[in-house]
């Protein structure tokens, strides 16, 4: 008996403790400095050796079981408190987080990137040149001498107070690069070009990629019109991810290439718009040809020793077809709703 209660009664009292505070009072009553167990353990010293040993063992057993009961009750009570606390901490996770807002890449840039990546596998590297060009590089060196009627096709912007014009194509980059590096050469020249044309289907500024490949005649790298065909047929099919895309080469005229061709791809025109692939119609998407000997001569390259091809692709039309963009003019308006809508993710490259 301790303080008039049996061990069992104390055990029950521990189990019944309703709070940590109550439990602690019981602990003090039993095990505190003046607690019942403590007092009985102290009283052991009055007893003889045998009795002391026997009673001490029993007392310590009782003490151990009481401590263990108090501990386990304490854990129960603490868990109950934590559970209650966690319940009270519940949050409404349906509230919106701050959304991650990644920017979008302009479709024109994406097309340029796709094309430069595609041609890189054939050893083409990117070359650049200035937007404000000399007449010489934009026209004369490209076999378009002064008074050539082809100049009328270009609707050129000229600068008022300096002897420059706004390049009408990125072809002058091939001249600059050939003059600098000679042949053989494989380059792509993407960039802004300008023509004074302004209506629903023409913008005074647009983008072009010019490709140029010159190799030595008769060498293992010798290239001819058949390579030009293969290279561009594959490109069209890869770009539009359409394996059986019909691709047609038509004779045309550019002063800087000969023979020259325009390339059409198959499409279907319906009231809903244009679908690329097999269909009743053709759509022109690029111009190309074997580099004219006069262009090579202008760049100090011997046309008896080297030949190659060049091609020029307008980026806007490709972007509009690939990403279903209806309106050319919106490309340069920078309406934030537009770029969110048709721009491309920097991570996935998808719209």
């Amino acid at each position, binding site marked *: 008996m301790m303080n008039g209660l049996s061990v069992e009664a104390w055990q029950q009292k521990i189990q019944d403790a309703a709070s940590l505070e109550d439990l602690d009072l019981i602990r003090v009553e039993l095990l505190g400095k003046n607690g019942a167990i403590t007092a009985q353990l102290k009283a052991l010293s009055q007893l003889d050796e045998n009795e002391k040993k026997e009673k001490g063992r029993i007392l310590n057993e009782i003490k151990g079981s009481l401590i263990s009961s108090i501990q386990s009750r304490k854990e129960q009570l603490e868990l109950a408190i934590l559970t209650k606390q966690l319940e009270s901490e519940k949050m409404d996770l349906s509230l919106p987080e701050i959304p991650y807002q990644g920017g979008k890449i302009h479709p024109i840039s994406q097309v340029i990137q796709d094309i430069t990546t595609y041609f890189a596998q054939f050893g083409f590297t990117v070359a650049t040149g200035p937007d404000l060009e000399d007449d010489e590089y934009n026209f004369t060196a490209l076999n378009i001498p002064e*008074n050539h009627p082809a100049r009328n096709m270009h609707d050129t912007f000229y600068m008022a107070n300096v002897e420059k014009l706004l390049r009408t194509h990125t072809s002058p980059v091939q001249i600059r690069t050939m003059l600098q590096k000679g042949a053989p050469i494989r380059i792509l020249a993407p960039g802004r070009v300008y023509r004074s044309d302004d209506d629903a289907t023409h913008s005074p500024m647009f983008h072009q990629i010019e490709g140029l490949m010159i190799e030595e005649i008769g060498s293992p790298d010798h290239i001819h019109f058949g390579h030009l065909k293969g290279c561009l047929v594959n490109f069209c099919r890869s770009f539009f991810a359409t394996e059986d895309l019909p691709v047609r080469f038509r004779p045309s005229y550019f002063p800087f290439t000969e023979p020259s061709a325009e390339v059409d791809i198959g499409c279907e025109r319906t009231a809903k718009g244009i679908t690329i692939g097999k269909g009743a119609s053709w759509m022109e998407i690029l111009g190309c040809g074997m580099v004219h000997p006069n262009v090579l001569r202008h760049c100090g390259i011997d046309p008896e020793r080297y030949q190659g091809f060049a091609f020029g692709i307008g980026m806007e039309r490709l972007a509009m077809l690939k990403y279903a963009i209806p309106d050319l003019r919106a490309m340069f308006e920078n309406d*934030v709703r537009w770029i969110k809508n048709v721009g491309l993710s920097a991570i996935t490259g998808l719209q």
Partner: protein
Amino acid sequence: MRFTLDWLKDHLDTQASAEEISLALTSLGFEVEEVINTGAQYKGFVLGEIIDLKPHPEADKLNLCLVNYGQAEMLWVVCGGRNVRKGLKTIFASVGCVIPESQTVLKKGVIRGVESAGMLCSSTELLLTEVIPTTEHGIIDLETTLPHGTALMEVLAKEFNLIQDTVIEISVTPNRGDAMSVRGIARELAAKGLGTFKPLEDITLDEKEICSLDIIIEDTTGCPYYTARPLKGIENAQSPQWMQNRLKAVGLNSKSLAVDVANYVMWDVGQPLHCFDMEQLSSSIVVGKTIPGTKFQALNDKEYELSGKEVVITSQDRSELYALGGIMGGASSASTPNTKNILIESAYFSRNAIAQTGQRLNIISDSRMRFERGVDPELVEYAQKKAAQLIHKYGGGTIGLAVTQGNKPLNELTITLPIEKVAQVTGQSYSKETIKDILQKLHCKIMKDEKDFLDVRTPSFRHDLGESIDLVEEILRLAGFDDVPALYLPTVIQSKSLVLQDQLIRKAMCQKGFHEAISFSFTSENVVKNFLFDPQVLNALEIKNPISADLSMMRPSVLCTLLQGVQRNIARKQSNLSFFEIGPQFNMKAEQENMLTALRTGRRQDKHWLLKDDKFNIYDIKQDLAFLLSSLGLSDQSYQLNQDDKPAYYHPGRSASLKQGPKTLAYFGELHPLVLKNLDIGQDVIAFEVFLDRIPGQKIKKAEFTPLSPFPLVKRDFSFILDEKVEAQTLLKAVLKVDKNLIQSVQIFDVYKGPNLPEGQKSITFEVSLQSMTETLKEETIQEISQKIISSVENATKGTLRQI
């Protein structure tokens, strides 16, 4: 260039359909723009007659007409025409016809309870109001003896002289002057095997000496060869209907016989002609140059001031100016319907002279188009004779003797074509026989046929064949591109990394939430002024021939056009914006600077419960810039910030440049409130600009591991009271230089200005992290470094340690 099938057959004996001809033209390099079959829309419409008539039982204004339309069975048709009567001949449309006006298919219908098996047409419904006049609410009323059931197309041809023909429009590339005529097109089609090219007729004229005329060519370079032929006493009224029809079909208006004939012959064979009113000419005319500054009243009602370089047709004393040679006639000497005596000019003008004049004066004419692309010298005389013949035939009068001056140029050239060159360029081996055959079909002559080469004589009408590559192209063009097998290029292993700077920038900027913008490289002078630039200083950026005043100057800063975009977005209630653009801008010497320009405005987020005051601030853009530069391999240790050197369009106190020595890498800051006010933007805008050409190229570094210290990191706080003008970077530098090995980082975590501090002072509090690679730092060492930090900062900033 337009032509009709009917006209084409004057020069080409062919059975080919319009579709076959279109395909052949495309494969020959003439892009077919349009094929218009004007007759096609009248398919199924026939001549009918009302045999019997009775009123509609249910409707006052309708009648039931029994129509004979040439078939065994007659049909009852409901008709609302007010002019219906027994015996009226009109146009009947049976079920299935497409009504041209409405483009609807005619169905068997029930009109107010009565079945109608077709329709009687008005000219409005047939789009023929100009040809067959009808009364209001009336159907076509024809007087004709043609049998019932005659097709409308035939009715139009026989009763109204209106031939329904197929019109084909092609675009002719500027190298092919020879194809700017119906005859030239026929010649190409014949070469492609679509028929037989017909020879030109020999023209014999009944000519008489009717007047004396002197022609003097003074400018033999501009005009080496000139012929003229007078006709007297003609009646210059309308040209015949067939000619008018053809001219109309190809887009030319009918004027008078002489003018129509000149146009017709030009279109037919490609030689431009001009008809003068002889009465307005002096008896001796000069083909030469005139006095600079002379004014010329052209036929197009415009006045041109001449430079004196143009080839003109004048009186010998230069007092009268008759024509701008080869381009356009003058108003005063033009023939009119009243003209009795005319002079037909047919000449050969040099391509260069015409191109120069045309470009300088900016005159476009059919004549210029042909001369500058090159005409066939062999046809100069033929065309003049043909015109005289036609005018005489339809206008009567007397044909005079032609006057010819100068020498007919010989536009033929012998080119040596090495046989192997054909395969070398095209990739396809054609036999020598094939090569010769193609060249001969193109009217080239084989002058020499050797084992390895051919000497080829080009025809007089081709101005684009100058060297062997031109012949190679012709062979490939005629043989067809489909013949050449497509070969694929082998792939090449890239030793260099393919990541381009632009791509890297785009990824970095998108990661930071910027959208990519592309704006025009030009802007308006007004925007440039609004940007506090002096347009006078920037006059190098002015465009001579801008498309509009809004696009009249190259932009001196990409921000000009980006901010125009901000303006438009705000107008559309989109005011939280982050944009970047990679593109050119131009300095006062019109030199191009390739830029990365970015701006932010508004809030980071549209209203959000987690974010209260969330406006972008200057340190956001500073972070963006630092992140971008580090993506390009530039740590913040590699450049210096300078708050004194930046453009005027920034807020003077909230902007700076980043420099590497004297070189400016970038600007950033808040835009000047005045700029924003000028552009009507009512919210702050922060921006940065990076000069991409000045960013050092990234070297690919060898991978190297920096070991991590196993010893404890010690942190100490310091607070200094400083003059408010002292820049934080001065303090940071002073701390960092104390011990580069032990000081791992310095973090400013408080900046204070306020009542507890004297006026003009501020406090900066920062934490220094110390760590050694080799030992646990001893208290004495820490003390020693702390003392050094204090004295270094005090020295550099003249500030004092604040006792915390």
